[in-house]
């Protein structure tokens, strides 16, 4: 409890990749997502930890920071929380700084800034095993004495040091002592004057010097007198060509170098490690691309080969359930609703769960191993010509799983124009919801026996490449032609490689499975029931096909057909396109309902292969299937993406722009496939 008898709030702060989220999870028992690349946490998360005496403390896990001079949106979130300017959480009562023990000099730079916030500080000296492995001898007690804050060694991923940390959090944490780094004389004069103008209006524990430095850096909060002084000093430094911000960084680093030297802590070995050895392969200008392509191909082959077995089991399960229901229940509307509505809709989507889990398994391995940052480095060469930096790659790669976390991950991108461009193109990365659509259409386009697994994997890879290539082309249009300005240079930390933790990867797969099944049990279930209703009523005939054509859905489809006919789509596909506006995977469940095939995948594929136009011609020709796949590569068929884009861009302007350009592109792409296909004689 704090002095007012209220629960204490402790902010968890540190450099990116210092292990904050791992420590936060270990202390709170929560499952905050972790990964071995910078920028995994892009928003604040809270959780309850308990001290050794059972006192509950609210921990706030903050995005990684290199300094308290925020630039990117995620850094601004951390800054606002630490200054008590964030809605939803009070100003913290203390700060727990998590530092990477193998990289102390740079990590402690942030600690020296945090110590000037006027809050009690505790430091978790994390990853001590990694530091010792590099030959760095750590002396936590010496560090505590020299810096004036308590250091506790931890290995968060192994749960070591947590007892000591809980014990320290239970004690009354002391405010850091006076500033120990030496301010250069011109700056000391400025800070002294500004601090004097502010000191009397500040609470006793808040450091006036820290506030003065913030004012000099351009902060707008403070008394008018202090603000005017800060403006005057900035102007004077500008005229004298004195780079005061460089002087501060230099003074802090000089101080830290002295502290570490006196504490006998070196920087360890730098070269010759297995990380460098792996990097020599994966960052190679030629071999690196081979590794990346090989990994992507392995992913897609796995999606088609390994996933086929559990998919068959799920398929058989839903078929058996449908037959059992039809045998157990008397024929009628309720039986139709369950078999042709609920089972067809939900089963048609749930069957793709194994493929989605395989995708997340691979992404988890890439994330946890540290490879993602290398892929960003490699892709910077491609992204730079289109006006983006490699930093945009990680949000784009996240979008292969789902555009929502991808768009949120753009908070790590510092340049606002870069960030907006990345948000605009993120939905073009083929997300996991497109997998059911692509798989069904690929199966409908070509019989399984005619194409080997690798052939389908290559076709799937082609669709991903089409989406990604188009995204890069559009990034060039948006960034260079529409928004203007140059592309930012790449500065990216490359974490050491780590053996992926099975638990972390499995946890992520489990979370995604729950999200997917929840969607199947809510949105898709509701839409399936609605679709069953609109495709079954009004009842006009006992003949199912005649009844569907005259139903509400059929009427809508027929109304749409003239618009989508040039794309090779009939009115039934039109129903699927409208229904899947909320979520792409609904297309498959809609088709299952439209063709009355229950939840069986094979039944749907057969029905699609034999579906004909009134003149007897096949609807799902290979060209039409390709046209439909291209439509889904480009179309923004996801309401959740629109909602998150609105939140992240602060208005409707850009989400509406996204909907218009992506729908237009989808129509144009699908139409071009038909034109070119027919011109080539298909």
């Amino acid at each position, binding site marked *: 409890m704090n002095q007012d008898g209220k629960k204490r709030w402790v902010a968890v702060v540190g450099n990116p990749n210092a292990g904050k989220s791992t420590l936060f999870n270990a202390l709170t028992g929560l499952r905050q997502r972790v990964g071995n690349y910078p920028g995994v946490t892009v928003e604040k998360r809270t959780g309850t930890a308990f001290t050794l005496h059972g006192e509950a403390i609210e921990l706030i896990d903050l995005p990684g920071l*290199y*300094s308290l*001079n925020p*630039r990117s949106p995620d850094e601004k979130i951390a800054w606002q929380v630490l200054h008590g300017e964030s809605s939803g959480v009070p100003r913290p009562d203390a700060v727990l700084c998590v530092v*990477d023990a*193998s*990289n*102390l*000099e*740079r990590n402690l*730079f942030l600690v020296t800034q945090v110590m000037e916030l006027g809050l009690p500080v505790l430091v978790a000296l994390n990853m001590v095993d990694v530091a010792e492995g*590099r030959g760095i001898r750590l002396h936590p007690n010496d560090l505590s004495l020299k810096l004036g804050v308590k250091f506790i060694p931890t290995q968060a991923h192994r749960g070591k040091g947590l007892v000591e940390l809980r014990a320290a959090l239970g004690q009354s944490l002391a405010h850091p002592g006076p500033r120990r780094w030496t301010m250069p004389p011109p700056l000391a004069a400025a800070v002294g004057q500004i601090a004097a103008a502010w000191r009397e209006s500040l609470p006793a524990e808040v450091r006036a010097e820290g506030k003065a430095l913030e004012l000099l850096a351009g902060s707008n909060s403070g008394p008018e007198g202090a603000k005017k002084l800060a403006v005057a000093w900035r102007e004077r430094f500008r005229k004298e060509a004195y780079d005061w*911000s*460089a002087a501060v*960084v*230099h003074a802090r*680093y000089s101080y830290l170098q002295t502290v570490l030297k006196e504490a006998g802590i070196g*920087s*360890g070995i*730098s*070269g010759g490690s297995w*990380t*460098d050895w792996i*990097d*020599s392969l994966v*960052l190679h*200008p030629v071999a690196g691309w081979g590794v990346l392509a090989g990994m992507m191909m392995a992913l897609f082959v796995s999606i088609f080969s390994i996933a086929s077995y559990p998919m068959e089991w799920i398929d058989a399960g839903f078929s058996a359930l449908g037959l059992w229901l039809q045998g157990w229940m008397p024929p009628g509307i309720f039986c139709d609703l369950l078999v042709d509505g609920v089972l067809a809709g939900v089963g048609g989507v749930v069957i793709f769960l194994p493929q989605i889990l395989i995708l997340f398994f691979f992404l988890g391995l890439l994330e946890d191993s540290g490879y993602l*940052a290398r892929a960003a*480095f490699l892709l*910077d*060469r491609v992204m*730079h010509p289109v006006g983006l*930096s*490699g930093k945009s790659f990680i949000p784009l790669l996240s979008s292969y799983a789902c555009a929502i976390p991808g768009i949120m991950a753009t908070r790590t991108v*510092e340049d606002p124009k870069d960030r907006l461009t990345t948000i605009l193109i993120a939905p073009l990365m083929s997300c996991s919801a497109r997998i059911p659509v692509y798989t069904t259409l690929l199966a409908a386009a070509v019989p399984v026996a005619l194409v080997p697994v690798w052939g389908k994997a290559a076709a799937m890879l082609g669709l991903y490449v089409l989406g990604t290539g188009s995204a890069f082309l559009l990034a060039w249009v948006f960034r260079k032609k529409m928004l203007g300005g140059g592309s930012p*240079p*790449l*500065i*990216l*930390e*490359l*974490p*050491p490689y780590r053996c992926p933790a099975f638990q972390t990867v499995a946890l992520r797969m489990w979370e995604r499975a729950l999200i997917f099944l929840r969607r199947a049990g809510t949105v898709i279930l509701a839409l399936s029931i609605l679709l069953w209703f609109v495709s079954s009523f009004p009842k006009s005939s006992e003949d199912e096909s005649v009844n569907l054509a005259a139903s509400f859905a059929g009427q809508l489809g027929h109304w749409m057909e003239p618009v989508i006919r040039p794309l090779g789509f009939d009115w039934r596909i039109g129903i699927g396109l409208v229904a899947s506006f909320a979520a792409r995977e609904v297309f498959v469940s809609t088709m299952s309902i439209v063709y009355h095939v229950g939840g069986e995948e094979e039944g749907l594929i057969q029905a699609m292969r034999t579906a004909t136009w009134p003149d007897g011609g096949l609807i799902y020709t290979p060209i039409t299937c390709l046209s439909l796949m291209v439509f889904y590569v480009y179309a923004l068929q996801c309401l959740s993406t629109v909602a998150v884009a609105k939140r992240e861009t602060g208005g409707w302007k850009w989400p509406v722009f996204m909907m218009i350009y992506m729908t237009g592109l989808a129509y144009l792409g699908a139409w071009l496939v038909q034109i070119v296909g027919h011109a080539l004689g298909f």
Partner: protein
Amino acid sequence: METFGQQMEGNFLNLTQVGPGTEVRVSRLECPPTTCQRLREMGFCENALVTKIRGGADLVCWVCGTRVALSARLAKQILVEHVDGRS
């Protein structure tokens, strides 16, 4: 007549001009202020020791106990000198 900046550039190399495996000392940063600040915060401050690990279009350096990737465009704006004083 050479400006002060040109004289300084004459004496220093930029980070793209040193070979992989070479340890150098940062002498000056020639980039926009916000980029300079970020570089300094990540350890590339004046007098810091940097070891270039990989060269090429983009490069990787070892600084302050960690690997940092930089675009060649940015590396050209980081002026360095050899630790033994060679230029």
